[in-house]
């Protein structure tokens, strides 16, 4: 019976949203200039944030998975903290560092006249901050489960550390890496709190979630249509992921 409650809690709002959405105006809505930029911006930012997360997160995941050192638990806790942190707090934290009066931001502004908030870089940073842990956690789990004998064999056969990692380890953990990247991307796509706090509302930072928030004030129906687009994207990703990479749960 409680399971029914769970289904109602999770699925009913989605059904309600689809029910209320003005389907007839779907294409008009998608054609609005603000919406197209938002969609495009969302795609660019989420992909860039995922790339950043992989570039920085993979080495971190590797260290966490392979090395025993004092403070590893603390490091892991710090690395996954954004997963449980309210995004708005993450946004404020980013402002204190990368804002124009922030530790790093101040230097960037004084030396190069560069300001990060209100730029696409801010939106990407905010999304990466929130989404990277999803990649790190999944990649670390994958790296831990690798049979290390393959790596040792490669090393014995004379492959360098780097070559072993790229040609043996990465192919072995590929399913985890892809799953982590997709989860990370999906989280980045939906990012709202850190983005609005750190990046602010501007033509360069209004991703779909921010656009939905603003559209809701003017045109609730339009906001529902935009939400449907994000739901569709998320569902497609989730279903594909389940089938192909996360293994069958049935």
């Amino acid at each position, binding site marked *: 019976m409680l399971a029914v409650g769970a289904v109602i809690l999770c699925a009913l709002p989605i059904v309600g949203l689809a029910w209320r959405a003005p389907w007839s105006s779907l294409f008009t809505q998608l054609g609005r200039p603000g919406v197209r930029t938002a969609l495009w911006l969302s795609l660019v930012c989420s992909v860039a944030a995922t790339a950043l997360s992989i570039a920085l997160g993979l080495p971190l995941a590797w260290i966490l998975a392979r090395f025993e050192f004092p403070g590893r638990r603390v490091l892991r806790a710090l690395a996954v903290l954004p997963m449980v942190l309210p995004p708005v707090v993450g946004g404020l934290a980013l402002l204190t560092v990368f804002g*124009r009066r922030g530790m790093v931001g101040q230097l960037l502004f004084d030396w190069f006249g560069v300001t990060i908030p*209100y730029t696409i870089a801010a939106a990407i940073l905010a999304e990466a901050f929130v989404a990277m842990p999803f990649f790190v956690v999944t990649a670390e789990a994958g790296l831990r489960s690798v049979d290390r004998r393959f790596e040792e064999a490669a090393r014995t056969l004379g492959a360098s550390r780097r070559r072993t990692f790229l040609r043996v380890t990465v192919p072995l953990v590929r399913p985890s890496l892809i799953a982590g990247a997709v989860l990370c991307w999906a989280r980045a796509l939906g990012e709202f709190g850190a983005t609005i706090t750190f990046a602010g509302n501007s033509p360069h930072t209004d991703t779909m979630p921010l656009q939905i928030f603003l559209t809701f*004030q003017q045109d609730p129906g339009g906001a529902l249509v935009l939400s449907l687009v994000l739901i569709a994207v998320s569902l497609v990703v989730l279903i594909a992921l389940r089938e192909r990479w996360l293994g069958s749960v049935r």
Partner: protein
Amino acid sequence: MTGLVHHATGRGEAPVAKAFGIVAMALLVAGACASAPTPGPIVADPTASRSGDCEPAAGAATLPAKTAVHGTVRVLAAASLTGAFAELADAFEATYPGARVATSFGASSDLVARIHQGAPADVLATADTETMDLAADPPDGSRGDVATPVTLTCNTMMIITARGNPLHITSLADLARPDVRFALCAEPVPCGRLGRQVLHDAGVDARPVGSEANVKAVVAKVIAGEVDAGIVYVTDARVARPRASSVAIPAQNNVVTTYPIAVARDADNATAARAFVTFATGPTGRSILRSYGFGPH
């Protein structure tokens, strides 16, 4: 007073009653105002003498008896009313010990959208009549979410800059300078529409770097130093001092926006809601609003 800006963008509830003194003081001020009306107010909008309908007519409605009002009255109000309505709520609770005011502040457009989606509310106060009209007569043709609105007060716009105005911004035209980064409210929000109108009327072609969700967010970004300037209400500029400096916009380029207030159609506590509207548009409400810089200038 300035401390109140801190919960500006949140939806905090007003602290439970404390201020009998405020009421007493407010009544004194109200008395003084009534006997000596402000001579020759500067009308900021040259096209219409709006100072007349800028504030409610004095002494029109009578307040219900002390014991007739009880329970919680949920007030949704424009972000710019944050400080004034927190004080007003205290004064109301002091007058009606059985009543409690739960305030919720946000962009007027957001409040209207929330009421339309069925958010519980007894009273709605917005920063312009256009947004209130959307609640009174929803564009989707459904029944109005509020009863007939009445005029609460009015407000005009002002430029705020970083503390001490380091970039020497002296006019709207300075906002178009390439070295000046400024923020407005987002377009659906009244202060966003008004800010853009002010720039347009002055013939200034300046693009904001940011369009914030409500007026308090613009103030916050200026104080935090993320932008150099912003166009906000005179009342917000006042609350932001001394953490931000302000630059007046000449009357011929400025706009006056009228704040309406209305009882929600589905108000659970209609008696208290009506009492709150009468109270807010009465002498106490007017003097509190004036003390925050609302009303004719």
